C-alpha cells in the first residue's frame, strides 16, 4: 500500500488506528526542561542558506521527530545540534543552538567534547571495521576509560539495551561489526552511541536503509530508550514519526529562497490529527512531498 492511500485511510479512521497498538500517550508538558533550545537558528553552506531562522525547544527525555520532504533541511538541522558540519568547508551557523543553556556555537565550546554528550546514529549503519566488542567500547575508550572490567561490563549493558546481546554474545571478539546484517549493524551503532552514556541521541533517518522488520526493532528500541535519553529523530516516514515520537516538527523548503523553514512544531498526536497549518495537513495527507 502506498503512503498516500495509507494516509487517506488514516484520516477516515483516526490517529490511533494509524499508529496501531503502539500508541503512546505521553504529552510533553511545559513543566519539562528544554534540553535543546533552538533560537533564530540559520545555517549556511557557503552563500547558500540551508535553514532559515528556526526556533524550537526540544524537551529532555522525550522523543522529538523532525519530518518534511527531502531537501527541507531536516538533516542539516539535526547535524547542526552536535556540530557535525564542522568538517564541511564553508558551513556556518547563525543564531543560537543552546544545549543545557550553553550555545554550542560559542567560541570556547569544544565540538569534540560536545559530541561526547550528544551521540549520533546515522542513516546508513556505519560500524567500524573492528570487532563487535571494540565497536561498542570505542566511545568508552575515547572518553578515557581504561578499566577493562568496567569496559566489558558497559559493553554488555549497552548491547543488551540495544537488544543485540543475545545475537552476538558468542562472537563479540570473533566477528567484525561490518559482518553483521544491516539491521544488526544499526543496533550495534545504537549500542555504540549509548555506551558512553550521552545525554542526547540524534538519529538521522536510522531506518531508511533497513527492511520493515529491522525497522520495527529499532522503533521498539527507541521506545525503550526514551526514559533515559533525549532523542531527536529525523525521518521521512510519517508513520514512523507518528509511532515513536512525542513531539513532531514539520519543516519545508521555502520555494523562493530554497531555505528550509520550520512550519509547525507540536505534540505528535495533535500534528497528525489536527495540524494548525494547512501545509502540514497537505503533507501529512500526502498531497505533496
Amino acid at each position, binding site marked *: 500500500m502506498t503512503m498516500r492511500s495509507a494516509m487517506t485511510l488514516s484520516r477516515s479512521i483516526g490517529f490511533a488506528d494509524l499508529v496501531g497498538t503502539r500508541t503512546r500517550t505521553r504529552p510533553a508538558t511545559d513543566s519539562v526542561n528544554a534540553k535543546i533550545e533552538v533560537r533564530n537558528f540559520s545555517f549556511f553552506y557557503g552563500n547558500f542558506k540551508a535553514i532559515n531562522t528556526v526556533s524550537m525547544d526540544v524537551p529532555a527525555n522525550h522523543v522529538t521527530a523532525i519530518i518534511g520532504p527531502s531537501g527541507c533541511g531536516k538533516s542539516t538541522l539535526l547535524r547542526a545540534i552536535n556540530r557535525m558540519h564542522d568538517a564541511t568547508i564553508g558551513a556556518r551557523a547563525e543564531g543560537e543552538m543552546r544545549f*543545557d*543553556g*550553553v550555545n554550542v556555537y560559542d567560541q*570556547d*565550546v569544544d565540538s569534540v567534547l560536545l559530541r561526547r554528550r550528544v551521540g549520533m546514529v546515522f542513516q546508513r549503519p556505519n560500524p567500524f571495521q573492528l570487532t563487535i566488542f571494540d565497536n561498542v567500547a570505542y566511545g568508552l575508550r575515547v*572518553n578515557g576509560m581504561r578499566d577493562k572490567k568496567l569496559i566489558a561490563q558497559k559493553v554488555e549493558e549497552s548491547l543488551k539495551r540495544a537488544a543485540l546481546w543475545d545475537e552476538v554474545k558468542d562472537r563479540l571478539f570473533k566477528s567484525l561489526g561490518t559482518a553483521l546484517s544491516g539491521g544488526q549493524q544499526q543496533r550495534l551503532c545504537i549500542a555504540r552511541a549509548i555506551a558512553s552514556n550521552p545525554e542526547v541521541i540524534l538519529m538521522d533517518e536510522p531506518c531508511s536503509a533497513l527492511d520493515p522488520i529491522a525497522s520495527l526493532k529499532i522503533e521498539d528500541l527507541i521506545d525503550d530508550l526514551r526514559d533515559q535519553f533525549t532523542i531527536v529523530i529525523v525521518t521521512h516516514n510519517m508513520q514512523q514519526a507518528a509511532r515513536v515520537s512525542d513531539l513532531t516538527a514539520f519543516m519545508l523548503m521555502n520555494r523562493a529562497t530554497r531555505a528550509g523553514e520550520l512550519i509547525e512544531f507540536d505534540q505528535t498526536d495533535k500534528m497528525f490529527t489536527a495540524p494548525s497549518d494547512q501545509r502540514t495537513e497537505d503533507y501529512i495527507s500526502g498531497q505533496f512531498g
Partner: protein
Amino acid sequence: MAKQQHAESWSNGKSVLRHGDVPFRIGTVVLASCVVGLVLAMGVIMFVSSGEARTAFGWDVLVGQVWNPVVTDIAEPTFGAWPAVRGTLLSSLVALVIATPLAMGIGIFLAELCPPALSTPLSFLVELLAAIPSVIYGVWGVFVFVPFFNQVFSVPVSDALGDYIPWLAGPVATGRGVMVTGIIMAIMILPTIASLTRDVLRLVPNTQREAMLAIGATRWETIWLAVVPYSRAGIIGAVMLGLGRALGETMAATLLIGNSQRISESLFAPATTAASLVANELTNSVSSLHESALITVAFALFGITLVLNLGARLLIWYVDRGMAGGRS
C-alpha cells in the same frame, strides 16, 4: 548546579586524547613536507653542482658536439653532451613511434572490445610488464633480442636499403644501437601508456557510445569517432608519461645502445643516451668539471621529466574534470 558544571567541563577536557590533534597535524604536515623538501633539495643540489659546467660552457654542455673528458697534449677537456642528448631523443622517438599505436590498440581492446572475463587477467599481465625491473629487459635484450633482431631485421634491412637511406645504413656490427634500444624501450613504456589509455577510455560515458551506434555507426566507428576523441586529452597525457619514462630509462639503454660518443646517422650504429652517459661516467669522473657536466645532464633530464609530468597531470586532471561535468 549540574547544568553549570557541564558547561564548564566543555572548555577543559580532562582526557589526554583531546590534545592529540595539533601534534598529529603538525606531524603529518612535517612529514608530508619532506616530500616537497626532497623535490626542492634534488633541484637545488643538482643546480648548485652543475654550476661549474654551466658557467664554463653555458648551453654548450647540452648541445656541444664534442665530449672529451681527458686532458691531452693537444686539447683541453670539452663537455658537449649533444651525442647523448641526440641519442636520448632518437631512441625515445623510436620507442614512442612504436609504442603509441600499439598501446592505443591495447587500451582500446581492453576497454572496449575485450570480454570482461579476459579483461582482468590481460590488464594484470600488461601491468606486470611495467613491474619487471629494467635491468631484466636489458639482460633479455642483450642475450636474446639483439642477436635475433640483427638476424631477421637489422642485417637484411641495412644490406638492402642502407645504401639509399643513410639512417638505415650498416654496418650492423654488434647490433647494439638506437634502434634496438628504442624497441626495448617501447616494450617498457607500452604498459604505462596502455593502462592509462584504458582508464581514460573507461571514463567515457556510455551515452556517447550509444548515440554513435544509434546513427548506424559500426563498432570501430563508434570507438574511433566518439570514444577516442572524447578522451584524447587523457591519451595525450598517457603518451607524455610514457615519453617521460623512455627519456629517463637508464639500464636498458646502458646495456643496449653501445655507449659510443660518436654521432652516426644510422639507427643501427651504437650511440649513447644522457642517462647511460651519467651511469657510465659519473663514478669514474676524472675532474670536478667532468662531474659537474654529468650532473648538468642529469639536471636537464630531471627538468624535462618534470615538465612532462606537469603537462600530463594537467591533461589528465582536465579530462577528469571534464568527465565529471559531462556526467552530471
